């Protein structure tokens, strides 16, 4: 005698692929929504800040001799790059060295290790010919991360990251280039949306760092 399976079991067997597909659909929607919601926050300032304004500068330190910066290192990431002096082009743009592996120091600005003023370093995030640049890492830098700048006199000036901001290119604050005020280091590159027709980014990513409180003698 053949016993037919209960009707309920058949119904469940027919239904489980639909349930699985529905679960996949819900998962896709959830992940997509999370990505869309989280991304703009990261672009606006990431874990280091959400505002479009520069962080408050600390008090000025006593006057100290500065040195022309010649090399940059992000020791926590094993990244290093040579630094060359650059200026401002006739159109008012900061001249960024062509090789994306090289960083430009805005020479009219402060010297590394100086007792006052902003040391401005700029580098390409990427290049059409040579790919990602050394400053492609800027959007990932975390607060407290060390940044070392070696001077022409051999000194290593230690800074630590305190903030990161993203500005529309047209709204890049002029105070970034202040040659007075408290000593700090500013790293600038491009970010945000990329326009393939003009081959340029919409924003600038700016990382702020201040002199590390207690430089280790081993690096001197």
């Amino acid at each position, binding site marked *: 005698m053949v016993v037919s399976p209960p009707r309920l079991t058949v119904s469940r067997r027919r239904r489980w692929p639909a349930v699985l*597909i529905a679960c*996949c*659909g*819900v998962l*896709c*929607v*959830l992940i*997509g*929504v999370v*990505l869309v919601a989280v*991304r703009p926050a990261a672009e606006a300032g990431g874990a280091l800040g959400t505002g479009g304004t520069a962080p408050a500068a600390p008090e000025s330190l006593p006057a100290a*001799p*500065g*040195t022309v910066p010649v090399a940059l290192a992000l020791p926590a990431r094993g990244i290093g790059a040579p630094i060359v*002096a*650059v*200026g*401002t*082009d006739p159109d*008012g*743009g*900061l001249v*960024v060295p062509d090789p994306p592996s090289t960083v430009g120091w805005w*020479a*009219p600005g*402060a*010297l590394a290790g*100086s*007792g*006052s*003023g902003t040391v401005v370093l*700029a*580098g*390409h*995030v*990427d*290049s*059409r010919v*040579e*790919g*990602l*640049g050394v*400053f*492609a890492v800027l959007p990932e830098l975390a607060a407290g991360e060390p940044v070392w700048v070696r001077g022409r006199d051999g000194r290593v000036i230690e800074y630590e990251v305190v903030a990161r901001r993203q500005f529309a*290119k*047209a709204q*890049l604050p*002029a105070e970034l280039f202040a*040659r*007075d005020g408290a000593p700090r280091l500013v790293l*600038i*590159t*491009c*970010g945000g*949306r*990329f326009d*393939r027709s003009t*081959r340029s*980014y919409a924003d*600038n990513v700016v990382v702020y760092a201040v002199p590390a409180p207690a430089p280790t003698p081993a690096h001197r």
Partner: protein
Amino acid sequence: MNIRRSRLAVGTILATLALAGAAACSSPNQPAPGPAPGAPPPASDPAAAPGAGQATDAQRAALGQAHQGALALVALGGLGAQQGASEQVRTLGPQLQEQGQSLDQQIRSAANAQGVALGDQLSAQQQSMLADLQSRTGQPFDQAWLRAALDMQQQARDAANAVLNDPNATPEAEAAAQRTLAQLDALLAQLRQAAGEAGSATPGSVNAGTGGQAATQTAPIGAIGLIGLGAVLLGGVGWWWCRRRA
């Protein structure tokens, strides 16, 4: 650089010159204003006019700082003449030096008239600023030197304009400010042109990416794709469910 600090001293030159030219000083009931950049000349008080030999402490301080500011201009000019990489800086250096000497001459006259003794030392901040410049060479030196010179000029201009805009300024003070402005203008145009050519201007933009490899729009596109896929899957399941029920 400690440019801001040296600006303070440079900015007092005009106020002091105006003070000397206008024979002005603080009123008995109001302390003399400090030597802030752009400070208008104090109210007139014949009792303390140059020549009266009765300088107040505030006047002594203002004259001392103005003198140091003029000395800083002279030193900055000399440094440009000596260490400039470009012909422009080597030419502008002596002109700045001359301007500083001219201003210092007037300050010394005012100080002598009031019996104020002046030193010959730059302030620690001014020395630091000059040391900062001295540690640079080549084009970076020229760029920083031009910025320093422009900053000093601008501060002096601001001080002069403050005197001119002050409704309480005496005609003598206004005349002193006008003379100084004319003196500054002659050099300012050259400094600005040289600064533009040397790349010393404050940048208005930074274009540091041409590849697009680091672009962030790929993530939103992926996210939108995921949402779309999820919607299609849910829609399909819903359609199947409705059909089955029917």
